[in-house]
């Protein structure tokens, strides 16, 4: 069966696709930062509790307080890119979601469990004793599982050749396990989380007032160590991911296409720079370079999607119906709400503790 016959007809979009693409990339980067911090700090806290099951530490206590925020913003900042993704690629993502529907909808139930588990870890941090390990472990395990499902969906949606499985017996339970990019891609995201989790820990002394923090240097050392080794592993996994790409796509990144290769080289350079700052324990330069790297990697990720899909579809082929007023409404409300948020944060910071 020719997979192109299966691709649904898309619906028209109200503004030129580049706007949507821009918003997609922008919000996705923010989502990644929250998500990485959430999972990374969770993993680091989990490892801490494995090593010292009954012990408490200011660091893990801080992490316990931070994780519910991180979940809230990870989810919130995940909503926006998923929305913009559906606008440009709805006819792909809806299909892949239906193919793996059971896993996809289970994300909701799992997320609620993980969220409450994180709140228990937060609100009952001291009282929990050795159960701290269980609750942070449950949250982290669920985050990792959800990440796996999302990676499945993101790879399945760009592979219409795999959609024929719909006509087999596994209704709603199709994972993209035969895709060679699945595991490196998944690990690439999760290892990035460990790195960012470490970086966040190293950043904590800057986010909190110094008097609140007695273990300032320990945090920077610990955090940057996690960051550096994870980033090192990231480079290896990244190469594995590259090698797993279909040949025509791989070649584009390796000199076959100037733009693809250019972004890729700069991205690698960013990773190397981050690594150097990491090992030197230079927190802020490491943070800046890694955020830059993440932006490049998000662009590369989009190029990969283009590369997979361009024989079937490009967003520029979407029918445009030119309705700008809702877009203006969105931009205005965004500006107003951001101003209000800034004001609220200022009020909050005045009482001595930021959120």
């Amino acid at each position, binding site marked *: 069966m020719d997979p192109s*016959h*299966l*691709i*649904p*007809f*898309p*619906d028209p*979009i*109200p*503004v030129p696709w580049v706007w*949507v693409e821009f*918003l997609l990339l922008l919000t996705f980067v923010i989502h990644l930062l929250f998500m990485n911090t959430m999972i990374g700090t969770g993993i680091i806290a989990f490892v801490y509790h494995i090593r010292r099951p009954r012990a408490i530490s200011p660091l893990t206590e801080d992490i316990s307080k931070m994780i519910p925020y991180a979940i*809230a913003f990870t989810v*919130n900042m995940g*909503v*926006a890119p998923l*929305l*913009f993704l*559906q*606008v440009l690629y*709805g*006819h792909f993502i*809806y*299909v892949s*979601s*239906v*193919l793996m*529907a059971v896993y*996809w*909808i289970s994300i*909701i139930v799992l*997320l*609620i469990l993980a*969220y*409450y588990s994180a*709140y228990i870890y937060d609100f009952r941090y001291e009282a929990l004793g050795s159960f701290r390990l269980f609750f942070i472990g449950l949250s982290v395990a669920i985050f990792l599982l959800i990440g796996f499902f999302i990676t499945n969906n993101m790879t399945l949606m760009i592979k219409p050749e795999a*959609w024929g499985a*719909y*006509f087999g017996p596994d*209704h*709603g339970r199709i994972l993209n396990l035969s895709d060679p990019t699945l595991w490196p891609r998944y690990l690439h995201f999760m290892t990035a989380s460990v790195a960012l989790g470490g970086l966040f820990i190293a950043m904590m002394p800057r986010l909190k007032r110094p008097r609140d923090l007695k273990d300032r240097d320990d945090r920077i050392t610990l955090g940057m160590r996690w960051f550096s080794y994870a980033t090192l592993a990231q480079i290896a996994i990244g190469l594995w991911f590259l090698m797993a790409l279909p040949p025509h796509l791989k070649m584009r990144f390796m000199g076959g296409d100037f733009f693809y290769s250019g972004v890729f080289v700069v991205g690698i350079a960013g990773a190397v720079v981050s690594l150097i700052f990491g090992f030197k324990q230079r927190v802020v330069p490491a943070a800046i370079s890694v955020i830059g790297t993440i932006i490049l990697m998000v662009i590369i990720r989009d190029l990969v999607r283009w590369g997979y899909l361009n024989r079937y579809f490009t967003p520029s082929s979407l029918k445009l*119906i030119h*309705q700008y*007023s*809702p*877009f203006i409404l*969105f931009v205005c*409300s*965004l500006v107003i*709400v951001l101003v*209000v*948020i800034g004001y*609220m*944060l200022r*009020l*909050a910071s005045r*009482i*001595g*503790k930021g*959120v």
Partner: protein
Amino acid sequence: MNYPIWHIPSVGGGLLIAIISILHVYVAHFAIGGGLFLVITEMKGYRENSQDIIDYTKRHAKFFLLLTMVFGSITGVGIWFIISLVHPSATSILIHNFVFGWATEWVFFVGEIVSLFIYFYTFDRMDRKNHLLIGWLYFIFAWLSLFIINGIVTFMLTPGDWLLTGDFWDGFFNPTFWPSLFFRTSLALMLAGLFGFLTSTAIKERGLRETMIRYCARWLILPMLILPLMAYWYLSWISGLPQGMIKGRSPELIPFVKTFIWLMPILFLGGIVMAIRMPSAIKRSLAFLLLIGGLLYMGSFEWIREASRRPYIIYDYMYSNAVLKSQMDEINEKGFLRKAKWVKTKIIDHENFMAVGEEIFNLQCLSCHTVGGFVNDILPRTAKFAHFGMDAMLNGLGKINDYMPPFMGTVKEREAVASYIVNGLHKKPDMKRLFPPLKQLALEIPPFDENTDKYILLAWSDLGIRFISDNDSYFNISPPGNTIFAQLIKRGETPQLVTEGIDLSYKVETGFERPSRHVDFWKFVNVLFGRSIENDVGLNGNAPAGKMTFKKDFNSFEAAAIPIVPYRDDQLYNPYPLVTIEARDKESGKIIVSTMCVAPISTEMGCKNCHGGRWRFKDMGGLDAETAMDLLGVHDRMSKTQLLESAKAGSPKRCQSCHSDQIYNVQGKPELLNLSASMHGFHANYMTGRGADACEACHPVSSTGFTRGFRGIHARMGLTCVTCHGTLEDHALSLLLKEYKDGKEGAMKLMRHLKPRLAPKKEEIQPRSPWVNEPDCLTCHIEFRPPLNNASGFNRWTKNKKDLYRLRSDEMGILCTACHGSTHALYPAVNPYGKNRDNLQPDQYQKMPYPLGSNKNCKVCHTIDMADEMHHPNSLRMVRTMKE
């Protein structure tokens, strides 16, 4: 069909959507009203300088945060996930049309999260004024989220001008935007009180507890004072079909509407009861009960809103099964398989028939139906059907039952789906149509000697096909009975029609004299007809044997409504029992001539083909209880009657007690359609595109049935029901148009989806009254001559009753039927229970089965050959259609 489906037939995506959505909206509305509750309660604490109230507010804020931020927000994402899995096409439309609406809502969501976190984590630490400001900002963000989402949710039910313009704002500020916004805002405030009970009943200190419970009760009760008005306002802006659905047209909605209406006063009273002093344990339990009540209230409201837009998912734009309304015609023409993307097979053949049926079923039906699940389970709904009935049901979908989408596709595709449901899901064996060998009954033709006999007695049934319903404990559509006419002719060169000085008597065949042994008619005749009659006596007072009375209007003798059924005492099924008619000289009492004729009476009513059940009598005829109950149930459901209940209580109804019927001269209810128009009009919607098989599905005329009632010469010439009456659609339209013309609005409901087939448009069909304006023989037999090829009797009706073949006579007063036989059994007929059973008098008087006097046999009455065509033109000639 643009998208694949998530195949979970036993659960149903709809149920998953309902569960996630209802839980979400319950908490999400609390997240709005509860936000206001927090600031107002905090203000109350400050105003009354009560640290206890402030502490309570803080505890409530924690509960609020944990419930709304975690469960509320994740289930919100959950709705989006689940609708994109179950209805990807509709989700795609919502996303693409309203992308920046969603994006704006997301912006407010960000504001909500930030403000709620700050509100909760800075409680008691921020200065009061600023803290209250944060609380107000939270409430504003939350309400603005509702404002945005409200536009998109209401759009699905009332898309308004968007249907024409496709404009964001037309869809957003649609007709129900404002009523819904205010309704939901009131609901949100009410939920603040309802959830407030949970935390206030947990307060340990009694005085504060009672104060706060009463405070929460006010939050519950005050919005409830205006909620009914809001609901009414909302309903009044939902126009047309969806409003009708809510008001009772959709059987699925009735329990939800009842729940919604009843819970309003219950919750209100609950709020009042909570304000009364009583033990805290009771109040706490009551608080939980009220919370569940609130969930049911909210759930029933959402269900009503969702289900009232059926058969659409986006009203008037996209059907529940994701097919666009605009695609319908193309799909019906080219076929569903060709237009659908996610099907394995594109071509239907004998091998893949069932598999294709399953694929189409999955794509068209599973969006609303489950297979063995809780919601709209297809299995009990289709259990009664064999293939024909299932196919008819699919054929009629979305027409009179307009809460379902029509079936989309070709006839073959429809049949494949019917096969899948009947043979696949229900695993019923393929029903081969039975070709029963019918018993050939002995026939003794009464003697006649053309040289010595002086009289000719002609007798016939007024209707050549007559069927009765024989399950009178449920209903009656026609009483057991057959009317026999007779004319006596004194032979001679100038024959005379004898009407005086003689007595005519009749007697039904042995074994048929006790019909009350076989049917319940006499048990229920009092209830059905309002008078009691003795067993085995007909409605006109005639017994199985008796005297005929002279009817001046027709110059003939009549035995009206002789009680007779097709069941012989020895359990033989015979829809053609014989009646012997004898003429006696009044003075001497001596028999001067006798003859016989059949009294057609059948119970082969095909109701069971669609309504389930089986034949009541030996697999050959009769209406069994299951069939009767089903058809009454359907009538009750669709016409809001209580016929089944009434029948079960021992009070069955006669169809004519509401629906007028010319053949029985019954008026019925003047606003309702006559029986014929309603029966044909309703059923035509389920049997379109057919020929005589549609007629055969109900009437006893199938050539493979037990009655084979259409047995006259026309049948042998290859004519069918359709030749004279038109197809079922045409036939129904002719009846409905008359009713519509007479001001009966109900006709339009049945006509709306019927397309004429023998006339180019509806307007060209001649309206007609049943039993009065019928096919006219002379339409085809112009001047009594042979018809032209392809002549059709359709659409040129007899002007009045007198012109009917069965009541018409020549200038001599001889009825057409006297010489040509009963309607549908015109000489030479072939009776399935014995070749010449219908041709008794031609055989008796002429030794041939042709009309009296045919083949220039004028002698049969005139005793000599005649040269003039006195009876009608073209009568003096040889029969064209000699029978072997």
